[in-house]
Protein backbone atom coordinates (compact mmCIF):
# COMPACT_ATOMS: atom_id res chain seq x y z
CA UNK A 1 0.00 0.00 0.00
CA UNK A 2 1.28 3.43 -0.88
CA UNK A 3 1.48 5.75 2.12
CA UNK A 4 0.56 9.25 1.01
CA UNK A 5 2.55 12.41 1.73
CA UNK A 6 5.84 10.71 2.56
CA UNK A 7 7.61 12.71 -0.08
CA UNK A 8 5.19 15.31 -1.38
CA UNK A 9 3.62 17.93 0.83
CA UNK A 10 -0.03 17.95 1.73
CA UNK A 11 -1.84 20.85 0.19
CA UNK A 12 -3.49 22.01 3.42
CA UNK A 13 -0.37 21.91 5.65
CA UNK A 14 2.31 22.48 3.05
CA UNK A 15 4.37 19.77 4.75
CA UNK A 16 4.96 16.06 4.40
CA UNK A 17 3.35 14.14 7.23
CA UNK A 18 6.45 12.92 9.02
CA UNK A 19 7.58 16.48 9.57
CA UNK A 20 4.39 17.48 11.35
CA UNK A 21 4.63 14.25 13.32
CA UNK A 22 8.16 14.85 14.50
CA UNK A 23 7.45 18.47 15.46
CA UNK A 24 4.47 17.36 17.54
CA UNK A 25 6.71 14.75 19.14
CA UNK A 26 9.39 17.36 19.80
CA UNK A 27 6.75 19.61 21.37
CA UNK A 28 5.98 16.82 23.86
CA UNK A 29 9.71 16.38 24.44
CA UNK A 30 10.05 20.07 25.21
CA UNK A 31 7.42 19.61 27.91
CA UNK A 32 9.20 16.54 29.30
CA UNK A 33 12.57 18.24 29.61
CA UNK A 34 10.87 21.53 30.54
CA UNK A 35 9.37 19.79 33.55
CA UNK A 36 12.78 18.50 34.55
CA UNK A 37 14.45 21.88 34.09
CA UNK A 38 11.69 23.38 36.20
CA UNK A 39 12.32 20.69 38.84
CA UNK A 40 16.02 21.56 38.75
CA UNK A 41 15.28 25.22 39.45
CA UNK A 42 12.80 24.23 42.19
CA UNK A 43 15.36 22.05 43.91
CA UNK A 44 18.18 24.52 43.57
CA UNK A 45 16.17 27.53 44.74
CA UNK A 46 14.57 25.47 47.51
CA UNK A 47 17.84 24.18 48.99
CA UNK A 48 17.97 25.41 52.56
CA UNK A 49 21.47 26.51 53.54
CA UNK A 50 22.56 24.93 56.79
CA UNK A 51 19.80 22.27 56.69
CA UNK A 52 19.89 20.51 53.34
CA UNK A 53 23.06 19.05 51.95
CA UNK A 54 24.76 21.95 50.19
CA UNK A 55 24.09 22.36 46.47
CA UNK A 56 27.54 21.78 44.99
CA UNK A 57 29.07 24.01 42.38
CA UNK A 58 29.37 22.02 39.18
CA UNK A 59 32.98 23.08 38.73
CA UNK A 60 33.88 21.54 42.10
CA UNK A 61 32.33 18.12 41.61
CA UNK A 62 32.20 17.43 37.90
CA UNK A 63 34.84 16.28 35.45
CA UNK A 64 34.70 19.49 33.47
CA UNK A 65 36.81 18.18 30.60
CA UNK A 66 34.41 15.26 30.06
CA UNK A 67 31.39 17.56 29.90
CA UNK A 68 33.23 20.02 27.67
CA UNK A 69 34.38 17.33 25.23
CA UNK A 70 30.89 15.84 25.18
CA UNK A 71 29.44 19.23 24.27
CA UNK A 72 31.88 19.60 21.39
CA UNK A 73 31.14 16.04 20.27
CA UNK A 74 27.39 16.64 20.19
CA UNK A 75 27.79 19.92 18.29
CA UNK A 76 29.98 18.18 15.75
CA UNK A 77 27.45 15.40 15.38
CA UNK A 78 24.72 17.98 14.73
CA UNK A 79 26.84 19.51 11.97
CA UNK A 80 27.46 16.04 10.52
CA UNK A 81 23.73 15.28 10.43
CA UNK A 82 22.88 18.36 8.37
CA UNK A 83 25.73 17.59 6.01
CA UNK A 84 24.43 14.04 5.64
CA UNK A 85 21.04 15.47 4.74
CA UNK A 86 22.61 17.84 2.20
CA UNK A 87 24.46 14.88 0.67
CA UNK A 88 21.13 13.13 0.11
CA UNK A 89 19.72 16.27 -1.46
CA UNK A 90 22.73 16.18 -3.79
CA UNK A 91 22.00 12.47 -4.40
CA UNK A 92 25.45 11.41 -3.13
CA UNK A 93 25.02 8.16 -1.19
CA UNK A 94 28.70 7.66 -0.35
CA UNK A 95 29.04 11.16 1.05
CA UNK A 96 25.86 10.65 3.08
CA UNK A 97 27.23 7.37 4.40
CA UNK A 98 30.49 8.98 5.54
CA UNK A 99 28.77 11.83 7.36
CA UNK A 100 26.40 9.40 9.01
CA UNK A 101 29.25 7.21 10.21
CA UNK A 102 30.69 10.38 11.74
CA UNK A 103 27.41 11.01 13.57
CA UNK A 104 27.31 7.49 14.96
CA UNK A 105 30.95 7.68 16.02
CA UNK A 106 30.17 10.91 17.88
CA UNK A 107 27.17 9.37 19.62
CA UNK A 108 29.26 6.35 20.66
CA UNK A 109 32.02 8.62 21.97
CA UNK A 110 29.44 10.66 23.88
CA UNK A 111 28.07 7.56 25.60
CA UNK A 112 31.53 6.20 26.40
CA UNK A 113 32.48 9.48 28.08
CA UNK A 114 29.16 9.53 29.90
CA UNK A 115 29.71 5.98 31.14
CA UNK A 116 33.18 6.97 32.34
CA UNK A 117 31.68 9.90 34.25
CA UNK A 118 28.95 7.77 35.84
CA UNK A 119 31.44 5.10 36.83
CA UNK A 120 33.70 7.72 38.34
CA UNK A 121 30.85 9.14 40.41
CA UNK A 122 29.54 5.80 41.57
CA UNK A 123 32.80 4.07 42.42
CA UNK A 124 35.57 6.63 42.79
CA UNK A 125 34.04 9.53 44.70
CA UNK A 126 32.44 9.55 48.10
CA UNK A 127 31.30 11.97 50.76
CA UNK A 128 31.39 11.42 54.49
CA UNK A 129 29.22 13.80 56.46
CA UNK A 130 30.32 13.92 60.08
CA UNK A 131 28.03 14.49 63.03
CA UNK A 132 28.98 18.17 63.15
CA UNK A 133 27.96 18.56 59.47
CA UNK A 134 31.46 18.97 58.10
CA UNK A 135 31.73 16.97 54.88
CA UNK A 136 34.86 15.14 53.76
CA UNK A 137 35.08 14.34 50.08
CA UNK A 138 37.36 11.72 48.60
CA UNK A 139 37.57 8.06 47.87
CA UNK A 140 36.68 5.40 50.40
CA UNK A 141 39.21 2.60 50.25
CA UNK A 142 37.74 -0.61 48.96
CA UNK A 143 35.95 -2.69 51.54
CA UNK A 144 36.32 -0.19 54.36
CA UNK A 145 32.80 1.15 53.92
CA UNK A 146 31.58 -2.27 55.13
CA UNK A 147 31.16 -3.40 58.72
CA UNK A 148 33.72 -6.18 59.26
CA UNK A 149 32.32 -8.76 61.65
CA UNK A 150 33.41 -12.27 62.66
CA UNK A 151 30.23 -14.32 63.08
CA UNK A 152 29.68 -17.69 64.68
CA UNK A 153 25.92 -17.89 65.02
CA UNK A 154 22.90 -16.63 63.14
CA UNK A 155 19.32 -16.17 64.26
CA UNK A 156 17.03 -16.25 61.24
CA UNK A 157 13.53 -14.81 61.47
CA UNK A 158 11.07 -16.51 59.13
CA UNK A 159 8.61 -13.66 59.43
CA UNK A 160 11.11 -11.26 57.88
CA UNK A 161 12.54 -11.44 54.40
CA UNK A 162 15.20 -13.82 53.13
CA UNK A 163 18.49 -13.26 54.98
CA UNK A 164 20.73 -10.98 52.96
CA UNK A 165 23.93 -11.68 54.89
CA UNK A 166 24.58 -14.67 52.60
CA UNK A 167 25.80 -12.31 49.88
CA UNK A 168 28.09 -10.52 52.28
CA UNK A 169 30.11 -13.46 53.57
CA UNK A 170 33.78 -12.90 52.75
CA UNK A 171 34.84 -16.52 52.44
CA UNK A 172 34.35 -18.40 49.18
CA UNK A 173 34.01 -21.53 51.24
CA UNK A 174 30.57 -23.12 51.34
CA UNK A 175 30.08 -22.69 55.07
CA UNK A 176 28.06 -25.35 56.85
CA UNK A 177 25.50 -24.19 59.41
CA UNK A 178 24.20 -26.46 62.14
CA UNK A 179 20.58 -25.92 63.10
CA UNK A 180 20.42 -25.57 66.87
CA UNK A 181 16.71 -25.13 67.52
CA UNK A 182 13.35 -26.52 66.49
CA UNK A 183 12.32 -29.76 64.92
CA UNK A 184 15.29 -29.78 62.59
CA UNK A 185 17.84 -29.36 65.39
CA UNK A 186 21.06 -31.16 64.64
CA UNK A 187 20.65 -31.03 60.88
CA UNK A 188 23.01 -29.00 58.75
CA UNK A 189 22.47 -26.62 55.89
CA UNK A 190 25.12 -25.18 53.61
CA UNK A 191 25.47 -21.50 52.81
CA UNK A 192 24.53 -22.10 49.17
CA UNK A 193 21.32 -23.88 50.27
CA UNK A 194 20.37 -21.36 52.91
CA UNK A 195 18.02 -19.37 50.69
CA UNK A 196 15.92 -22.35 49.58
CA UNK A 197 15.92 -23.71 53.15
CA UNK A 198 14.70 -20.32 54.39
CA UNK A 199 11.86 -20.23 51.86
CA UNK A 200 10.73 -23.74 52.85
CA UNK A 201 10.76 -22.83 56.53
CA UNK A 202 8.99 -19.56 55.76
CA UNK A 203 6.15 -21.44 54.03
CA UNK A 204 6.04 -23.96 56.89
CA UNK A 205 5.75 -21.18 59.43
CA UNK A 206 2.99 -19.42 57.46
CA UNK A 207 1.00 -22.66 57.34
CA UNK A 208 1.43 -23.27 61.07
CA UNK A 209 0.40 -19.71 61.86
CA UNK A 210 -2.69 -20.10 59.66
CA UNK A 211 -3.55 -23.38 61.42
CA UNK A 212 -3.08 -21.77 64.80
CA UNK A 213 -5.39 -18.89 63.91
CA UNK A 214 -8.00 -21.27 62.60
CA UNK A 215 -7.86 -23.23 65.86
CA UNK A 216 -8.06 -20.03 67.89
CA UNK A 217 -11.12 -18.97 65.90
CA UNK A 218 -12.80 -22.31 66.53
CA UNK A 219 -11.87 -22.19 70.19
CA UNK A 220 -9.74 -25.33 69.89
CA UNK A 221 -6.49 -23.62 70.84
CA UNK A 222 -5.18 -24.21 74.35
CA UNK A 223 -2.56 -21.76 75.51
CA UNK A 224 0.48 -23.43 76.97
CA UNK A 225 -0.46 -26.84 75.65
CA UNK A 226 -0.59 -26.25 71.94
CA UNK A 227 2.79 -25.50 70.48
CA UNK A 228 3.39 -22.04 69.03
CA UNK A 229 4.78 -21.99 65.47
CA UNK A 230 8.50 -21.63 65.29
CA UNK A 231 9.23 -18.24 63.81
CA UNK A 232 12.96 -18.27 64.36
CA UNK A 233 15.85 -20.65 64.08
CA UNK A 234 19.34 -20.42 65.49
CA UNK A 235 22.20 -21.64 63.34
CA UNK A 236 25.81 -22.06 64.36
CA UNK A 237 28.93 -22.38 62.28
CA UNK A 238 32.68 -22.14 62.40
CA UNK A 239 33.62 -18.46 62.68
CA UNK A 240 33.29 -16.71 59.34
CA UNK A 241 33.80 -13.13 58.22
CA UNK A 242 30.92 -10.92 57.12
CA UNK A 243 31.51 -7.62 55.35
CA UNK A 244 28.10 -6.14 56.04
CA UNK A 245 26.64 -3.37 53.93
CA UNK A 246 25.79 -0.69 56.51
CA UNK A 247 22.63 0.22 54.62
CA UNK A 248 21.28 -3.25 55.39
CA UNK A 249 22.03 -2.97 59.09
CA UNK A 250 19.41 -1.76 61.57
CA UNK A 251 21.86 -1.63 64.46
CA UNK A 252 24.96 -3.22 65.92
CA UNK A 253 27.08 -3.49 69.02
CA UNK A 254 30.39 -5.22 69.69
CA UNK A 255 28.78 -8.66 69.66
CA UNK A 256 25.62 -8.38 67.60
CA UNK A 257 24.72 -7.36 64.09
CA UNK A 258 21.02 -6.70 63.46
CA UNK A 259 20.04 -6.78 59.81
CA UNK A 260 17.02 -4.91 58.50
CA UNK A 261 15.63 -8.25 57.30
CA UNK A 262 15.47 -9.23 61.02
CA UNK A 263 18.40 -11.64 60.88
CA UNK A 264 20.57 -11.32 63.98
CA UNK A 265 24.19 -12.32 63.79
CA UNK A 266 26.26 -13.01 66.87
CA UNK A 267 30.01 -12.89 67.04
CA UNK A 268 32.61 -10.19 67.35
CA UNK A 269 32.95 -6.84 65.67
CA UNK A 270 36.33 -6.65 63.94
CA UNK A 271 36.34 -3.17 62.48
CA UNK A 272 33.86 -0.48 61.64
CA UNK A 273 36.22 2.26 60.62
CA UNK A 274 35.95 3.87 57.22
CA UNK A 275 39.23 4.63 55.51
CA UNK A 276 39.17 7.48 53.01
CA UNK A 277 41.65 9.27 50.80
CA UNK A 278 40.67 12.85 51.44
CA UNK A 279 40.41 15.15 48.44
CA UNK A 280 38.24 17.95 49.72
CA UNK A 281 36.64 19.48 52.75
CA UNK A 282 33.24 21.17 52.66
CA UNK A 283 32.34 23.33 55.64
CA UNK A 284 29.28 24.98 54.09
CA UNK A 285 27.02 23.60 56.81
CA UNK A 286 29.24 24.78 59.66
CA UNK A 287 29.09 28.41 60.82
CA UNK A 288 32.32 30.30 60.18
CA UNK A 289 33.08 30.77 63.89
CA UNK A 290 32.80 27.00 64.53
CA UNK A 291 34.98 25.87 61.66
CA UNK A 292 38.15 25.77 63.77
CA UNK A 293 36.70 23.01 65.90
CA UNK A 294 35.14 20.62 63.44
CA UNK A 295 35.69 16.89 63.87
CA UNK A 296 37.42 16.68 60.49
CA UNK A 297 40.53 18.38 61.88
CA UNK A 298 40.99 15.68 64.53
CA UNK A 299 40.76 12.98 61.87
CA UNK A 300 43.24 14.77 59.62
CA UNK A 301 45.52 15.39 62.59
CA UNK A 302 45.44 11.69 63.44
CA UNK A 303 46.44 10.86 59.87
CA UNK A 304 49.15 13.48 59.35
CA UNK A 305 50.36 14.05 62.88
CA UNK A 306 50.12 17.81 62.48
CA UNK A 307 47.78 20.75 62.07
CA UNK A 308 49.38 22.23 58.99
CA UNK A 309 46.45 21.46 56.74
CA UNK A 310 43.94 22.85 59.21
CA UNK A 311 45.89 26.07 59.59
CA UNK A 312 46.33 26.46 55.87
CA UNK A 313 42.74 25.65 54.97
CA UNK A 314 41.52 28.22 57.49
CA UNK A 315 44.10 30.73 56.27
CA UNK A 316 42.91 30.29 52.68
CA UNK A 317 39.33 30.65 53.87
CA UNK A 318 40.19 33.92 55.62
CA UNK A 319 41.95 35.16 52.49
CA UNK A 320 38.85 34.39 50.48
CA UNK A 321 36.63 36.18 52.99
CA UNK A 322 38.85 39.25 52.79
CA UNK A 323 38.94 39.03 49.01
CA UNK A 324 35.17 38.72 48.73
CA UNK A 325 34.60 41.50 51.25
CA UNK A 326 36.66 43.88 49.15
CA UNK A 327 34.19 43.40 46.32
CA UNK A 328 31.24 44.56 48.34
CA UNK A 329 31.24 48.33 48.77
CA UNK A 330 30.01 48.30 52.37
CA UNK A 331 32.12 45.24 53.27
CA UNK A 332 29.06 43.16 54.13
CA UNK A 333 29.10 39.73 52.49
CA UNK A 334 25.68 38.29 51.62
CA UNK A 335 24.79 35.17 53.62
CA UNK A 336 24.50 33.07 50.46
CA UNK A 337 28.12 33.90 49.60
CA UNK A 338 29.29 33.51 53.20
CA UNK A 339 27.82 30.00 53.29
CA UNK A 340 28.76 29.27 49.71
CA UNK A 341 31.41 26.95 48.29
CA UNK A 342 33.83 29.72 47.33
CA UNK A 343 34.59 30.38 50.98
CA UNK A 344 33.79 27.00 52.53
CA UNK A 345 34.75 24.34 49.99
CA UNK A 346 38.43 23.52 49.74
CA UNK A 347 40.36 20.95 47.78
CA UNK A 348 43.07 19.59 50.01
CA UNK A 349 45.67 19.57 47.26
CA UNK A 350 45.09 23.25 46.61
CA UNK A 351 46.20 24.37 50.04
CA UNK A 352 49.81 24.52 51.18
CA UNK A 353 50.56 21.34 53.12
CA UNK A 354 47.88 19.37 51.32
CA UNK A 355 50.08 18.76 48.33
CA UNK A 356 52.98 17.58 50.52
CA UNK A 357 51.04 14.41 51.16
CA UNK A 358 49.97 14.19 47.59
CA UNK A 359 53.10 12.48 46.35
CA UNK A 360 53.04 11.75 42.65
CA UNK A 361 50.14 13.49 41.00
CA UNK A 362 51.17 12.76 37.47
CA UNK A 363 53.88 15.36 37.72
CA UNK A 364 51.49 18.18 38.56
CA UNK A 365 53.08 21.11 40.26
CA UNK A 366 51.48 21.88 43.59
CA UNK A 367 49.09 24.75 43.13
CA UNK A 368 49.36 27.77 45.32
CA UNK A 369 45.99 28.64 46.70
CA UNK A 370 44.86 32.10 45.87
CA UNK A 371 41.52 33.78 45.73
CA UNK A 372 39.64 33.15 42.54
CA UNK A 373 41.42 29.88 41.89
CA UNK A 374 39.11 26.96 41.31
CA UNK A 375 41.98 24.56 41.18
CA UNK A 376 42.27 21.48 39.07
CA UNK A 377 38.99 19.78 38.33
CA UNK A 378 40.61 16.45 37.84
CA UNK A 379 42.54 16.55 41.06
CA UNK A 380 39.36 16.42 43.12
CA UNK A 381 36.57 14.80 41.17
CA UNK A 382 38.53 12.81 38.70
CA UNK A 383 40.98 12.07 41.46
CA UNK A 384 44.47 11.06 40.71
CA UNK A 385 43.50 9.19 43.79
CA UNK A 386 45.71 6.66 45.36
CA UNK A 387 49.01 8.47 45.04
CA UNK A 388 49.80 9.03 48.65
CA UNK A 389 46.80 11.19 49.50
CA UNK A 390 46.02 11.70 53.14
CA UNK A 391 44.16 8.63 54.29
CA UNK A 392 41.98 9.26 57.30
CA UNK A 393 40.19 6.74 59.47
CA UNK A 394 36.63 7.65 60.41
CA UNK A 395 34.79 5.63 63.07
CA UNK A 396 31.29 5.07 61.72
CA UNK A 397 29.67 6.39 64.87
CA UNK A 398 31.13 9.80 64.04
CA UNK A 399 29.35 9.90 60.68
CA UNK A 400 25.80 10.92 59.85
CA UNK A 401 25.84 10.12 56.14
CA UNK A 402 28.22 8.11 53.97
CA UNK A 403 27.59 8.00 50.25
CA UNK A 404 29.08 7.81 46.82
CA UNK A 405 28.30 10.55 44.30
CA UNK A 406 25.24 8.64 43.12
CA UNK A 407 21.68 9.95 43.15
CA UNK A 408 21.38 9.46 46.92
CA UNK A 409 24.19 11.92 47.61
CA UNK A 410 21.77 14.84 47.38
CA UNK A 411 19.20 16.58 45.25
CA UNK A 412 21.87 17.91 42.89
CA UNK A 413 23.10 14.42 42.09
CA UNK A 414 19.56 13.06 41.88
CA UNK A 415 18.52 15.61 39.27
CA UNK A 416 21.90 15.29 37.53
CA UNK A 417 21.46 11.55 37.03
CA UNK A 418 17.79 11.92 36.08
CA UNK A 419 18.39 14.57 33.44
CA UNK A 420 21.65 13.32 31.98
CA UNK A 421 20.37 9.72 32.10
CA UNK A 422 17.22 10.64 30.21
CA UNK A 423 19.28 12.67 27.78
CA UNK A 424 21.63 9.71 27.31
CA UNK A 425 18.64 7.49 26.47
CA UNK A 426 17.64 10.03 23.84
CA UNK A 427 21.14 9.92 22.38
CA UNK A 428 20.94 6.12 22.15
CA UNK A 429 17.44 6.26 20.62
CA UNK A 430 18.42 8.91 18.07
CA UNK A 431 21.58 7.02 17.15
CA UNK A 432 19.58 3.81 16.59
CA UNK A 433 17.19 5.60 14.22
CA UNK A 434 20.04 7.20 12.28
CA UNK A 435 21.93 3.89 12.19
CA UNK A 436 18.83 2.31 10.66
CA UNK A 437 18.89 4.89 7.86
CA UNK A 438 22.57 4.19 7.30
CA UNK A 439 22.23 0.41 7.25
CA UNK A 440 18.91 -0.02 5.50
CA UNK A 441 18.42 3.28 3.65
CA UNK A 442 20.13 2.32 0.41
CA UNK A 443 17.01 0.60 -0.93
CA UNK A 444 14.87 3.68 -0.32
CA UNK A 445 17.61 5.88 -1.74
CA UNK A 446 17.69 3.92 -5.00
CA UNK A 447 13.90 3.97 -5.26
CA UNK A 448 13.32 7.59 -4.27
CA UNK A 449 16.22 9.57 -2.76
CA UNK A 450 13.94 12.40 -1.69
CA UNK A 451 12.05 9.95 0.51
CA UNK A 452 15.25 9.03 2.38
CA UNK A 453 16.23 12.71 2.55
CA UNK A 454 12.92 13.46 4.26
CA UNK A 455 13.41 10.60 6.69
CA UNK A 456 16.92 11.77 7.55
CA UNK A 457 15.64 15.32 7.98
CA UNK A 458 13.09 14.08 10.50
CA UNK A 459 15.68 11.95 12.34
CA UNK A 460 18.05 14.91 12.19
CA UNK A 461 15.44 17.20 13.77
CA UNK A 462 15.30 14.85 16.76
CA UNK A 463 19.09 14.72 16.88
CA UNK A 464 19.33 18.53 16.92
CA UNK A 465 16.80 18.61 19.72
CA UNK A 466 19.00 16.24 21.76
CA UNK A 467 21.92 18.59 21.10
CA UNK A 468 19.79 21.56 22.10
CA UNK A 469 18.90 20.00 25.45
CA UNK A 470 22.59 19.34 26.15
CA UNK A 471 23.42 22.98 25.36
CA UNK A 472 21.43 23.88 28.49
CA UNK A 473 22.40 20.85 30.56
CA UNK A 474 26.12 21.46 30.23
CA UNK A 475 26.32 24.91 31.86
CA UNK A 476 23.78 24.25 34.60
CA UNK A 477 25.26 20.91 35.64
CA UNK A 478 28.97 21.43 35.05
CA UNK A 479 29.63 25.12 35.54
CA UNK A 480 27.06 26.69 37.86
Amino acid at each position, binding site marked *: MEIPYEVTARRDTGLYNAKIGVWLFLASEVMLFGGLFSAYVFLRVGTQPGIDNPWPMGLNVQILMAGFVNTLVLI*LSSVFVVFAWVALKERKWNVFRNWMIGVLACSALFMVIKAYEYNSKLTQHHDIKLLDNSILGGKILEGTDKIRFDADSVVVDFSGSAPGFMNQVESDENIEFKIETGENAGKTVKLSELRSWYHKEHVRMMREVADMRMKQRKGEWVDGTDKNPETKATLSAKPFRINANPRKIAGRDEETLNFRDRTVIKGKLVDDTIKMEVHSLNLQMVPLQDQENVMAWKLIHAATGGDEIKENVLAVRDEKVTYVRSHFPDGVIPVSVLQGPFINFRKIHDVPGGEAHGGDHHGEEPKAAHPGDHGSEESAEHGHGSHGDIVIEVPREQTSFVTNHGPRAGTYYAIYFTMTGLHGLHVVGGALVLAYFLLFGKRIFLKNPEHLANRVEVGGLFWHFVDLVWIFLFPIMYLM
Partner: protein
Amino acid sequence: MATTPEELASHKKAYTAIGIALLVLTCVTVAFGFWHPFGPVMTWRDITLGLLIAIVKSSMVALIFMHLNHERGLIYKILLFTFCFFLGLMLLIFFAHADPIREAFDAIRNSLG
Protein backbone atom coordinates in the same frame (compact mmCIF):
# COMPACT_ATOMS: atom_id res chain seq x y z
CA MET B 1 13.48 23.98 1.20
CA ALA B 2 16.76 24.11 -0.67
CA THR B 3 16.79 22.20 -3.89
CA THR B 4 19.16 23.90 -6.32
CA PRO B 5 22.92 23.25 -6.13
CA GLU B 6 23.53 26.94 -5.39
CA GLU B 7 21.11 26.91 -2.49
CA LEU B 8 22.64 23.74 -1.11
CA ALA B 9 26.14 25.21 -1.39
CA SER B 10 25.00 28.30 0.49
CA HIS B 11 23.42 26.06 3.16
CA LYS B 12 26.67 24.17 3.61
CA LYS B 13 28.51 27.43 4.25
CA ALA B 14 25.88 28.45 6.80
CA TYR B 15 26.07 25.06 8.56
CA THR B 16 29.86 25.28 8.79
CA ALA B 17 29.72 28.82 10.14
CA ILE B 18 27.09 27.92 12.73
CA GLY B 19 29.06 24.83 13.76
CA ILE B 20 32.17 26.94 14.35
CA ALA B 21 30.15 29.58 16.20
CA LEU B 22 28.69 26.90 18.48
CA LEU B 23 32.14 25.52 19.28
CA VAL B 24 33.47 29.01 20.03
CA LEU B 25 30.49 29.87 22.22
CA THR B 26 30.98 26.63 24.16
CA CYS B 27 34.55 27.73 24.91
CA VAL B 28 33.24 31.16 25.93
CA THR B 29 30.74 29.53 28.31
CA VAL B 30 33.50 27.51 29.97
CA ALA B 31 35.71 30.60 30.22
CA PHE B 32 32.89 32.52 31.93
CA GLY B 33 32.41 29.54 34.25
CA PHE B 34 35.97 29.97 35.50
CA TRP B 35 36.17 33.73 35.33
CA HIS B 36 33.05 35.29 36.68
CA PRO B 37 32.84 38.64 34.92
CA PHE B 38 30.54 40.14 37.54
CA GLY B 39 32.48 39.55 40.74
CA PRO B 40 34.52 37.13 42.82
CA VAL B 41 31.80 34.49 43.14
CA MET B 42 29.16 33.24 40.78
CA THR B 43 26.02 35.32 41.15
CA TRP B 44 22.68 35.48 39.35
CA ARG B 45 24.30 37.81 36.81
CA ASP B 46 26.83 35.14 35.80
CA ILE B 47 24.11 32.52 35.68
CA THR B 48 21.98 34.80 33.49
CA LEU B 49 24.94 35.39 31.19
CA GLY B 50 25.61 31.65 30.92
CA LEU B 51 21.96 30.98 30.13
CA LEU B 52 21.89 33.82 27.57
CA ILE B 53 24.80 32.22 25.74
CA ALA B 54 22.96 28.89 25.88
CA ILE B 55 19.84 30.58 24.45
CA VAL B 56 21.89 32.08 21.60
CA LYS B 57 23.44 28.68 20.87
CA SER B 58 20.11 26.87 20.96
CA SER B 59 18.55 29.54 18.73
CA MET B 60 21.28 28.93 16.17
CA VAL B 61 20.60 25.20 16.26
CA ALA B 62 16.84 25.71 16.01
CA LEU B 63 16.91 28.37 13.29
CA ILE B 64 19.62 26.99 11.03
CA PHE B 65 20.06 23.28 11.70
CA MET B 66 16.36 22.66 12.32
CA HIS B 67 15.38 25.01 9.49
CA LEU B 68 13.06 27.10 11.63
CA ASN B 69 14.19 30.22 9.80
CA HIS B 70 12.12 29.19 6.80
CA GLU B 71 9.48 26.79 7.99
CA ARG B 72 5.75 26.53 7.32
CA GLY B 73 3.28 28.42 9.48
CA LEU B 74 1.80 25.30 11.02
CA ILE B 75 5.11 24.44 12.71
CA TYR B 76 5.28 27.92 14.26
CA LYS B 77 1.74 27.51 15.57
CA ILE B 78 2.68 24.20 17.20
CA LEU B 79 5.77 25.80 18.71
CA LEU B 80 3.84 28.81 19.98
CA PHE B 81 1.59 26.52 22.01
CA THR B 82 4.63 24.61 23.22
CA PHE B 83 6.37 27.80 24.26
CA CYS B 84 3.34 28.96 26.27
CA PHE B 85 3.16 25.69 28.19
CA PHE B 86 6.93 25.64 28.66
CA LEU B 87 6.75 29.15 30.09
CA GLY B 88 4.04 27.92 32.46
CA LEU B 89 6.35 25.16 33.67
CA MET B 90 9.18 27.59 34.25
CA LEU B 91 6.92 29.99 36.15
CA LEU B 92 6.11 27.18 38.59
CA ILE B 93 9.33 28.08 40.39
CA PHE B 94 7.56 31.07 41.89
CA PHE B 95 5.66 28.65 44.07
CA ALA B 96 9.00 27.95 45.76
CA HIS B 97 9.00 31.52 47.03
CA ALA B 98 5.45 31.31 48.26
CA ASP B 99 5.95 27.89 49.83
CA PRO B 100 5.06 28.10 53.54
CA ILE B 101 7.42 25.21 54.36
CA ARG B 102 10.18 27.82 54.24
CA GLU B 103 8.88 29.10 57.59
CA ALA B 104 9.22 25.62 59.03
CA PHE B 105 12.81 25.50 57.83
CA ASP B 106 13.45 28.88 59.44
CA ALA B 107 12.04 27.54 62.70
CA ILE B 108 14.38 24.54 62.53
CA ARG B 109 17.31 26.78 61.75
CA ASN B 110 16.49 29.08 64.68
CA SER B 111 16.20 26.12 67.01
CA LEU B 112 19.62 24.95 65.87
CA GLY B 113 20.96 28.34 66.79
